[in-house]
Structures are given as C-alpha cells and as structure tokens.
C-alpha cells in the first residue's frame, strides 16, 4: 500500500459543476494532472473522483494588478499557498461507503457531493482496486491510472456483452491496446476471437514503430490460435506457415457485398442496385459467375430484359471484373473458408485472418471481411435459434475485430452491412464487434451509441471527439481530458466495463516481462507440459 497523501480540502462546488478543492500549501498545481484520480473523505461517504480542471486562485483580487515583489523568495514563499494558491475541480464520480458493510454494494454513482472542508487525498492502489476491481476478482489489467503504478482492470464479463471500440489517431497505440484486449478475452475464455488483421499485426508477430518485432497471438498462445492468410507468400516472407490459406468462389459474392464496395469500386447507386436484379434473374450464388462471363452485347440485351440502364449494367460488369483479378477469388469450386473458420471457432480456437498484401486494398479487405462475417453470422443465428435457450447448445460468444471500422459502419453503409446489424444488437446471436478506428466521426451515430465500452486515445479532430463522447454524461469535462491525452500509449476508457471514465497509461507490451505477465504459454515452441495442459486442461 502506498502512503496516503493529502492534497487539499473542499471549499465549494456543486453536483453539476464538480467540487472546488483548495490545494494545501505543500501541493503544487504542477504535481496534479487533469484526469488523475483522487479520493474525497466526506462525512458519511468516501468519494472517488477525477480531476477535471486546475486553476490558480488568489484571495486578493488586486494581486494580479499590483504584483508584489516576487523576485524576493521570502515574499513569494509567504504568498504561495496562502494568498495565492492552487485549486482543482474534482468531479465526484462514485461513492464508496465508508464502513466495511458497504463494501458489499461496491461503488455507486455519486448522487451527492462531499461536505465543505472534506479532505482530499491522492487515490491509492487500494482505492483503485476497490473501484475498478483487481486481477484477483477476474478483472483484466489494461494499464495504470495517471501517475500511479496501480493495475487498473476492466470487467471483461461486461465487455463481451456488447460491441466495443478502440479509437485514436494513427500511431497512438490502438493496435497495441487492441492486442491487449484480445489477449484478455482469449485468456478469460469468455469469447472466441475472429480478427480481420488488415496490417498483419495480430497473428504471428507485429512490429513496433521503434522497429522491433512484438509477438502476435500465435507466438504467445500457440495452438489456441489459428492464423488464416489471404496471402501465403507474405506469410512465408515473415517466416511462418499459416494454418490455412483463404480463398473464395464466385458463388460467395452477394449483392450486399457490392453495396458495401460501392464507393471503392466507384459505382453509381443504380449500378450497385443492379446486382439485386441480377441475383433475382440468375438466382443466388449463380449470378456473379453468369454475369461476369457476358459479352458486351449480351449485357445490353440483359439490361433491357431485367429493366436496368444498360450503361449502368456495363459499368457494373467492368468494375466487378476487378474482383475476379484477386488471387483469392476464383471461378473453381474452392474449399469453404468460412466453414473452416467456423469449425475452429466452435472448437474454442481463435482465428486471425491476415490480409498480407491485400491489406492495402480496401476493396479486398471489405469484400473478404463482409463475406466471412455474413456467413459466420448466419450460422450463429441458426445455431442460436436451434438451441432454443439451451445455453450448452448455443455457439460460443464471438468477438469480431475490424480495423478501419468506419469503412463498414459509415452512416451510408451501416444500414446495409452485416457489421451494422451486429453493432446494433447487444450480443443477440452471441456475436459482438471490436471496432478499431482512427476516424470515429465517420461511423454512424447510432452504431456509436450502441458501443458498450469505448477506449479512446488522442484524436485528430473535434468532430472525432464529439462522436466518441456523444451521449456520455459529463461530456464537456471529458472533452478536456481527452484532448490532453499523451500522443501515445494513453487512453480514456469509459462505458460498461469500467464504473467510471478513467485515463490509463496502457500496459507495456513487447518486453519479455510483459509476455510472461500476459501468460505466454510459449506458443508454438512452448514447453511440453504447457502444451499438454492446453490439450487436456490443467492436471
């Protein structure tokens, strides 16, 4: 336990605006950071709060006009902390009962504020644990509060009930954070993960900007993780053999996919909608193959037959030809990759789908993610309905991670894509999303409002901040906190998995120590006892 240090007393305030705390003479404003946690010892309650503002005040209003001779150290010392003092505004977020009986109820949202002259203390590790839970209670250690060593934990049970989001501008640590969250979910066994790994950072290994490699999930958890690849050459270049190389047939492509690709394929809405007419004409699964093989003349005839503008149809055909050039899309009958992924997920494995070189091609990324997710979701839906409430027969919870989520969840898209559907429902069919995005303002508002826990690093623009914070109480104050995050490895977390918004310094990832703390089982080269345990459970 750390030594408790007093920083000041409550001198004014309101529930709406937070309480004003006068700092004592020994605490400098420079020692306090916005977003840090404090405890206020009220008369009947202990309050757990966040510093939302820091100010310099003075009891003599004329001080700023008639400046005393502050070059004299003695005069400066006399004034500081007395006539000229520091003050902070604290938002009391939670009430922790003062006696041990109230431990049972846990922290409750504050419905009142501490009395005048209540003492304000720095939060200790024990305070953090009693508010956020500890690893011992099954929480997942995600990082530490500002200026503290304490382990701040997330409630994973709450987390996997809903879709969640990791936001932040490029280079702020989204991927590192997401990797940690995935590890947490993986270790807890509360859900299976399917990760659309656009930039090849999660599966085998990732890289750090300081140019060293960090372990991916496969290296840490070995047989628990399957890596599927869209690009086996890229995998080999990076020194490993994927568990499976993914491919699709023409029959896997649906008109819905074409809607999603409308922008990247530069299609008019008439042209994109024509895919539905084609499907109606040729039949599901067959339409793409039949259409793509048509000559120009035949296309024209077809246009009048199905009553679609002929130039739109011609444009559609030209653009769809691009899809046939992807090496993972073929005319032949291919292995059903979606089915293989499902099997792994059903057997409790976690699947990372690496895009290899295709990660740089939005069309490829969106097409594949959409096809697979739709297939998997259909299966989950059926399985869940068949189970008719029998928990054991239900499919295991699944968390689908998508980077650059706004591509799937923009307002124009989210009504039509499978991702929009999943995001809008709260684990109805045991599937939720973990969306990772640098431009949350491009994500549909309604989808954003459904996101259970938001983890936000520093953002680029005010619009992004607005979209992340919309609908959160205390919005205005959190804005200030969010805008002042460090540009890397710091995040504001709020929503269902934490009892109150909190700023964390994300746990370090990449050192040998971090791997062992994260339960590195030695991965594919792991020692045999661990591998046996993986197979047969702990002895």
């Amino acid at each position: 336990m750390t030594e408790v240090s007093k920083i000041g007393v409550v001198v004014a305030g309101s529930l709406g605006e937070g309480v004003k705390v006068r700092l004592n003479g020994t605490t400098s404003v420079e020692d306090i950071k916005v977003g840090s946690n404090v405890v206020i010892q009220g008369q009947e309650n202990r309050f757990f709060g966040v510093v939302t503002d820091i100010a310099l005040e003075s009891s003599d209003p004329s001080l700023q006009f008639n400046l005393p001779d502050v070059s004299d150290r003695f005069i400066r010392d006399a004034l500081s902390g007395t006539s000229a003092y520091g003050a902070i505004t604290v938002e009391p977020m939670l009430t922790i009962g003062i006696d041990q009986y109230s431990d049972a109820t846990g922290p409750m949202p504050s419905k009142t504020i501490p009395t005048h002259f209540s003492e304000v203390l720095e939060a200790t590790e024990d305070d953090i644990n009693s508010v956020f839970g500890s690893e011992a209670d099954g929480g997942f250690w995600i990082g530490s509060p500002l200026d503290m060593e304490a382990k701040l934990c997330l409630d994973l049970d709450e987390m996997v009930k809903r879709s969640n989001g990791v936001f932040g501008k490029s280079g702020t640590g989204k991927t590192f954070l997401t990797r940690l969250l995935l590890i947490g979910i993986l270790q807890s066994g509360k859900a299976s993960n399917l990760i659309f790994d656009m930039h090849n950072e999660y599966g085998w290994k990732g890289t750090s900007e300081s140019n060293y490699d960090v372990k991916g999930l496969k290296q840490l958890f070995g047989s628990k993780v399957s890596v599927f690849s869209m690009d086996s050459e890229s995998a080999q270049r990076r020194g490993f053999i994927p568990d499976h190389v993914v491919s699709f047939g023409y029959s896997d492509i649906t008109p819905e996919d074409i809607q999603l690709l409308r922008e990247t394929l530069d299609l008019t809405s008439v042209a994109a909608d024509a895919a539905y007419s084609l499907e109606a004409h040729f039949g599901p699964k067959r339409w793409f193959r039949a259409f793509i093989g048509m000559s120009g003349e035949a296309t024209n005839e077809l246009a009048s037959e199905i009553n679609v503008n002929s130039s739109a149809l011609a444009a559609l055909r030209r653009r769809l030809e691009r899809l046939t050039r992807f090496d993972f899309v073929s005319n032949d009958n291919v292995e059903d990759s979606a089915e293989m992924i499902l099997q792994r997920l059903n057997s409790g494995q976690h699947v990372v789908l690496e895009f290899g070189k295709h990660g740089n091609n939005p069309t490829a990324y969106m097409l594949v993610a959409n096809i697979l997710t739709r297939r998997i979701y259909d299966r989950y839906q059926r399985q869940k309905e068949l189970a008719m409430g029998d928990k054991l027969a239900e499919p295991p919870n699944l968390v689908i991670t998508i980077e650059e989520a706004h591509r799937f969840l923009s307002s124009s898209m989210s009504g039509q894509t499978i991702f929009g559907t999943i995001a809008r429902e709260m684990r109805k069919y045991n599937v939720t999303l973990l969306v990772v995005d640098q431009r949350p303002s491009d994500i549909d508002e309604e989808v954003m409002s459904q996101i259970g826990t938001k983890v936000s690093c520093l953002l680029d623009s005010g619009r992004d901040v607005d979209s992340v914070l919309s609908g959160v109480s205390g919005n205005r104050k959190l804005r200030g906190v969010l805008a002042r995050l460090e540009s890397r490895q710091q995040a504001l977390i709020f929503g269902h998995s934490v009892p109150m918004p909190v700023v964390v310094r994300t746990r370090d990832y990449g050192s040998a120590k971090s791997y062992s703390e994260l339960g590195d089982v030695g991965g594919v080269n792991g020692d045999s006892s661990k591998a046996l345990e993986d197979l047969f459970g702990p002895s």
Partner: protein
Amino acid sequence: MSTPSYEYPFRIGEVIESDTNEFTTQCYELYGAPSLGTLVKAGETEPVYGVVSYSHTSGLDPTRRPIARGEGLASEDLVYDENPQLNRLLTTNFKTTIVGFKFSSQITTYLPPRPPRIHSFVSQCENTEILTFAKSLDFMSSILGANLPQSDDVAAAFIRYACQALPEETELRVESAKRLASLLGNDTRRLEGILRRIPND
C-alpha cells in the same frame, strides 16, 4: 527611579495602568523598556502576556517640563552625568498589547478574563513561552486590527524578535510569513510592507 534590582535580573518594572486590551508598565530603569515587539509577562504564578507596542519617556511630574541642559557640554552622556537627579525626574513607561495568559500552567493565546493588577511585576519571558506565541500567532489579528500607526512595525518586530530568540527554529520566519499572508489575504500591499521589515539575518 531606583537602581535596577540585582536580585531579580529578569524583572523590568511594574504595571501602573491596565485594561482588557493592554497594560502599561513603568520601568525600574530610565530607558529600560524592552524593544518593540518583545514578549513580556505581568504577574507571578498566573501571568498575563503582552507584546511591547509603544514606549514613552517623560518627566515624572506632568506639570514640570524638562529643560535643555547641555549647552556647552561635549557629549549627551555628560548631561546625565552632571545632572544625576534626572534619573529620578524622568521615567520610561511602555505599553503592551495583551496576547494571552497562563492558567494552571497552560499558556493560552487569547485574552485573559481580566487584565493584570496594578503593581504586578513585569518581566522577560523564557524561550518556551516565546515559542508558544510564535507558533500560534493568534494574537496577530488583534495587533494588525488595532490600527495603530505602529501596528505593522509591532507585528514585524515580534517576528524578528522571535526568530532571534529561537535561532534553532529555522522555518519560523517563513512559517510566520505564511500565517501573516493568510491573515492579510486580501491586502497583499500591506503584507508586503510587513514582510520587508523582517529581513533575513
């Protein structure tokens, strides 16, 4: 007046006037008043404490004014040497602002229920007593609030006196300054003036 009392070296004089806020002491020795800001006590077992805030020397008989005597003398001291009667004709008195009292061997830093009796012996204080008042400074508000022309000097003088008497209390100067700053929270000008009178030495 009489010669100083060698049996009781700490004794300065006797109370000759007394009210709730202050008492006046007549010194046994001409010009024997303690420095401005000094802590003194009046009374034997349960003394009343005061801080010297004013002193005054004049002829003992108010109807007779001193006359100039030094014309043709080489130094001031010769005036007194050649007129030994002056020591009986002149007298030094000083006033003290009452700042506390001792009751059942406890020092209390606010006004006593009643001021000292006339003829109470007035003497210097010990360091432990000075420390008690220097640490509390509760009385400062009444000194500053008295609005005498010399109030600010008395306040500064007490702190100088305490720092000198208690050199081992290294933080005393800054601590006292901070106490003054809280008392004068809305008057930084005045505070600065007082602090300037407390040089570091």
